[in-house]
């Protein structure tokens, strides 16, 4: 069957079940309710003064009674510095547990060591918002029997609420925790800031294990994760490589190309009609996306504007803007550097939020619904404004859906920034290899060669032209870029599906096929 974007989606996949095709960015929300019922959270009890402390992660896992076919979850707030996921999977492997569903909120290069556990059947299913490194390459080449399911950050919450992901064990890394499991990422030697993605895991997992390298006297404040959901507490010497968890402050790129794209994007934002007193704003953490913040900061000062809130993944640059009084508040679901952790801990206007509040589509209004402007990156875009942030030009899974489709769905103005080509690879395609974010939720694409306006939103093109900005038709831009780079050869795939891209509402927006080239 074909979904509303014309992508061929199987009706059923053995081991996965029935698939529902994507119908449109807001089609399911317009009903006002979620079709699937919400499953109840686990029923637990504990005697007064019963100790939760375990002497090792192994002991905690053993107490959680792991079994074949179980689901284990992790959060990715430690980014590429995480060591707990590999440690826990190794323990399960040594215990002989097989057929595990791994539901990590995202997988990074540091998780490459679990590849042998995929190949030997320890792990047979993966749910995640992103997969990179050797894992991504191996999965793209058919390393798993069942396709991985890629969800958005908001979609992960929905998948847990509906029971599509049913966590048996949640491992929650914390840079500070107390003996009852109250935990946070906002202080300690391994501080990583917000722990927002783990909140849903704590609420729904049958066994929740908090792991920390910084056991503090009761109570651990702030109560980012609360003790009433925590079964066990483990203290280790280290929860990860601190140099890769969060360090220093995020610096704006020096790349002239990224700065050029960012400047054009900021000009577009300024003249979009949404750059006004009290606007809300989200930018990515790197490259051209973050650089947009530099120009927006200058424009806000020049125009004496004060924004309402900044949302999402937060960098020290956002913190600087908060401290300068340019925004009232930061809502932080994920923090990107050490300076952010300090701000989260010290500034009451810097507020930690869970993923459900950030982006779950099925509630009475997540915060992405309140966004005015979001700036997002892309691996590929196409002439229908669809965006791919998961598969690279060579067909490998190497990115993350993250909050891309969540924020694009909610924002009044979704700006996608990307170069028109990287190296000699054109980024603007007739049709992206994998759709993660549907074009209908993308208003403009900004490259170094100008601003492409989605024909669904013609009023923006008129505003930009009136402001003297360079507006280009995306078909013309594609032709120009193809003239420079040539057209990429088509990749070859088998008919085996290795990945399913779930839109935030649970429908299937695209699938990824196995790469033929070995």
């Amino acid at each position, binding site marked *: 069957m074909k979904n509303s974007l014309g992508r061929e989606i199987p009706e059923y996949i053995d081991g996965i079940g029935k698939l529902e095709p994507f119908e449109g960015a807001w089609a399911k929300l317009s009903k006002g309710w979620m079709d699937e019922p919400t499953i109840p959270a686990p029923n637990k009890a504990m005697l007064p003064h019963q100790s939760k402390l375990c002497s090792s992660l192994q002991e905690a896992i053993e107490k959680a009674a792991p079994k074949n076919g179980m689901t284990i979850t992790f959060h990715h707030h430690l980014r590429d510095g995480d060591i707990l996921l590999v440690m826990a999977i190794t323990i399960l492997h040594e215990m002989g547990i097989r057929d595990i569903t791994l539901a990590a909120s995202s997988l990074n290069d540091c998780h490459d060591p679990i590849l042998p556990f995929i190949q030997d059947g320890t792990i047979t299913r993966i749910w995640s918002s992103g997969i990179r490194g050797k894992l991504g390459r191996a999965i793209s080449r058919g390393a798993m029997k069942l396709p991985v399911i890629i969800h958005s950050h908001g979609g992960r919450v929905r998948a847990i609420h509906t029971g599509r992901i049913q966590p048996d064990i949640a491992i929650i890394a914390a840079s500070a925790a107390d003996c009852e499991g109250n935990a946070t990422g906002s202080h300690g030697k391994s501080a990583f800031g917000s722990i927002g993605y783990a909140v849903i895991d704590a609420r729904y997992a049958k066994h929740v294990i908090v792991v920390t390298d910084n056991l503090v006297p009761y109570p651990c404040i702030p109560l980012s994760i609360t003790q009433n959901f925590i079964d066990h507490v483990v203290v280790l010497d280290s929860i990860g490589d601190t140099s890769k968890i969060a360090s220093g402050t995020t610096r704006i790129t*020096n790349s*002239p*190309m990224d*700065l*050029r794209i960012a*400047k054009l994007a900021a000009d577009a934002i300024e003249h979009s009609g949404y750059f006004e007193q009290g606007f809300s704003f989200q930018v990515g953490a790197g490259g051209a996306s973050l650089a947009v913040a530099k120009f927006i900061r200058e424009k806000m000062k020049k125009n004496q504007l004060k924004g309402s809130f900044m949302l999402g993944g937060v960098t020290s640059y956002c913190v600087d803007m908060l401290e300068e009084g340019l925004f009232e508040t930061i809502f932080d679901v994920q923090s990107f550097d050490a300076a952010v952790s300090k701000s989260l801990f010290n500034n009451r206007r810097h507020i930690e939020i869970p993923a459900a509040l950030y982006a779950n589509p099925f509630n009475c209004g997540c915060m992405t619904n309140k966004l005015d402007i979001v700036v997002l990156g892309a691996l590929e875009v196409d002439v229908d404004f669809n965006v791919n942030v998961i598969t690279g030009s060579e067909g490998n899974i190497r990115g993350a859906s993250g909050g891309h489709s969540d924020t694009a769905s909610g924002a009044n103005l979704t700006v996608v920034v990307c170069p028109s080509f990287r190296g000699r690879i054109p980024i603007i395609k007739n049709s992206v290899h994998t759709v993660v974010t549907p074009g209908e939720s993308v208003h403009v694409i900004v490259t*170094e*060669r100008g601003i492409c306006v989605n024909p669904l939103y013609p009023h923006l093109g008129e505003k930009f032209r009136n402001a003297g900005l360079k507006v280009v038709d995306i078909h013309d831009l594609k032709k*120009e870029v193809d*003239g*420079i780079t040539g057209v990429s050869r088509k990749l070859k795939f088998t008919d085996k599906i290795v990945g399913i891209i779930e839109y935030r509402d649970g429908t299937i927006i695209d699938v990824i096929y196995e790469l033929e080239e070995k």
Partner: protein
Amino acid sequence: MLYIPGNNPAMLQQGGVYGADSLLLDLEDAVAINQKDAARILVRNIIQSIDFYDAEVCVRINHLSTPFGLADLEAIVPLQPDAIRYPKTETATELLELIRIIESIEDKHNLPHNQMEIHAMIETALGVQNVFSIAGCSPRVGALTIGGQDLTADMNIVYTPDGAGIDFARKRIVMAAKAWKIDVIDTVFPDINDEAGLIKETEYAKKIGFTGKAVINPRQIDIIHEVYTPTDEEIRKAFRIVKEFMVNKNAGIGVFAIDGKMIDAPVVARAQYILELANVKVEI
């Protein structure tokens, strides 16, 4: 004016996107000796295949005293970029010899002699002393530029951020350009991370009469544009002057006053120049 090394395809193909008024595709100092042929071929092909949008395209060739200068001309002149920049110009005689060779190549290709400009780069003490005759030796000379680094080396002094050592040269070159009514471009500011220093030096260049400034990194372009772009107040004032001038002119009055200050032809010319920079038209 953005310098782009002639042997860097990634930078060359993106040259037009940064908003520079002019691009200098460099075959000379930015290119190592063993890359000269490759750079020449690359620049030749890039000019023919890449859209640089509104930017003027200028090619800096190697000096004719090197083994590469003539080959550069033979490859580039038939393409008729907006300008050829000649490095280390020291005398009018040598520039006229360059123009003679260029025109013989143009004749061979049935090309006119009045399309492509010649920009003389002054970067030796001798060039500075001869700059007036260099600038006026041919109507094809469309601009002068100063090469600060080479000039300080030729003078055996160290280039300092205050530009003290080349201040005389700067002003002498500007004056020669003004005398012949041609453009004059200031040297590059080498520290790409020193935005404040770039602003200061550009403001000085503007103050003493340079019509533009060369850059080595695209990040410097917007800063220079900002300095050279008239302020809102300057535009408002210029608009008022030009408008009053047109009204008075229609009434047969040449000299008039605004807020008690005399407005005559030079003041009007200056105001018209500001409006031209700001792309503002006055109608009455």
